[in-house]
């Protein structure tokens, strides 16, 4: 199996590589269009700011490439948000793979700290991506923006309101939490993604 990680101007790529290494999976980081198109699976990671990331992707035509991938694709954190239709973060039009909108948590003083930083539970789990993951498992989140709930939601988390902790539409998967930092649960979800069979 050839697993490629999309190289762009966003953090946490190294952490994703290390996490894959811990579960015994090799991966390569690349922004080469053909390498991404011919990979068996693609991970689209990300920590950073939406508009800057989208500009970078567009400049390299990676926006179009990612949208048109046919193999299983996993977006992580900002990667998942960029796969949605739109982000309030600097009024950014995103890839539009998922119709869900990305909104900002509204801070109400010290009662709600933004970003949400730390461990929270995921529930209402659906899809093979969540195989062998218990309801109300803890995952590690760091984010100021969230994807709203929608028809593609496959895991839900509450931070004053319920939001999409994970999304799935066809061959595209996205997780808001950091699989690479979510201890055993995160490793299980990465393994599940590796085991997802591409549709013939």
């Amino acid at each position, binding site marked *: 199996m050839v697993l490629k990680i999309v190289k762009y101007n966003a953090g946490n790529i190294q952490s994703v590589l290390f996490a894959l290494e*811990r579960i015994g999976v090799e991966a390569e980081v690349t922004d080469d269009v053909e390498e991404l198109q011919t990979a068996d699976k693609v991970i689209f990671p990300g*920590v950073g700011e939406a508009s800057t990331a989208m500009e970078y992707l567009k400049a390299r035509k990676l926006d179009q490439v990612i949208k048109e991938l046919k193999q299983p694709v996993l977006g992580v954190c900002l990667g998942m948000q960029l796969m949605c239709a739109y982000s309030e973060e600097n009024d950014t039009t995103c890839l539009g793979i998922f119709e869900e909108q990305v909104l900002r948590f509204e801070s109400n003083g*010290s009662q709600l700290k933004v970003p*949400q930083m730390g461990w*929270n*539970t995921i529930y209402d789990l659906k899809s093979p991506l969540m195989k062998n993951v218990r309801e109300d498992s803890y995952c590690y989140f760091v984010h100021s923006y969230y994807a*709203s709930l929608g028809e593609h939601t496959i895991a839900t988390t509450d931070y004053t309101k*319920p939001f999409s902790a994970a999304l799935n539409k066809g061959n595209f998967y996205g997780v808001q939490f950091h699989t690479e930092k979510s201890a055993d649960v995160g490793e299980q979800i990465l393994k599940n993604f590796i085991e997802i069979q591409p549709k013939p």
Partner: protein
Amino acid sequence: MKELINDSARLSGSPLRGRGGLTKRIIPCLDIKDGRTVKGVNFENIRDAGDPVELGALYAQQGADELVFLDITATVEKRKTLSQLVNRIAHKINIPFTVGGGIGSVEDVSVLLQNGADKISVNTAAFKNPLLLNQLSKEFGSQCVVLAIDTKQEEDGEWYVYLNGGRTKTEAKCFDWAKEAVDRGAGEILLTSMNNDGTKKGFALDITRTLSTNLPVPVIASGGGGTMEHFTDVFEQGKADAALAASIFHFKEIAIPGLKGYLRDKGIVVRL
């Protein structure tokens, strides 16, 4: 497109059904010198508590929510935290970790993040050059910028900022500096009370609460945790988002699973 997002999008979906929500975090701190973990009492009398990578992995396995690695000698001896050690830690550990000690530039941070650190903490260098916080948050995002403050309550009742591992007093008040730092882009505060550190008589509840209830970022309380009850106090009375301790974990005075079970029984939301 922005105007298309209406209230129904914001309010969509079910009522809250997750169990508990965001947890309080328990963070073992591994002070590093020459690649080994150490812990001083009031920053003195250093004792050896093992290999940082192995110890960190053990804590992760036991249910620690994050780890902090502080190169305690770095500032004084002008050494850089070893990026190689960070790389070894990142290979092994599957929970987030912060690296601090002697970090003074965007370049220092870039190297540590590239080697797998999730967050970095800055202390003296940020106080001396507050613009560093603006630069770091712009370059890497606030989520990975932790401001560490060593603070001491003087006889006048005020909490002052200390630098260089607690050796240099400043005239700056703790809250003022914390607020400025957050305005400049610090995403989290690691607050160490020098009055409490090493005493095992409990965390500094008042100053922790002052920061945590007046700033929009998480506050990690550090210094003084000696019993399980101290952790309940710092979460309930101190309103801390996370609590950090070192020697009580290193010397097995408190085990993390036992501590978390205790906290859960007290009604505090923790990851178990």
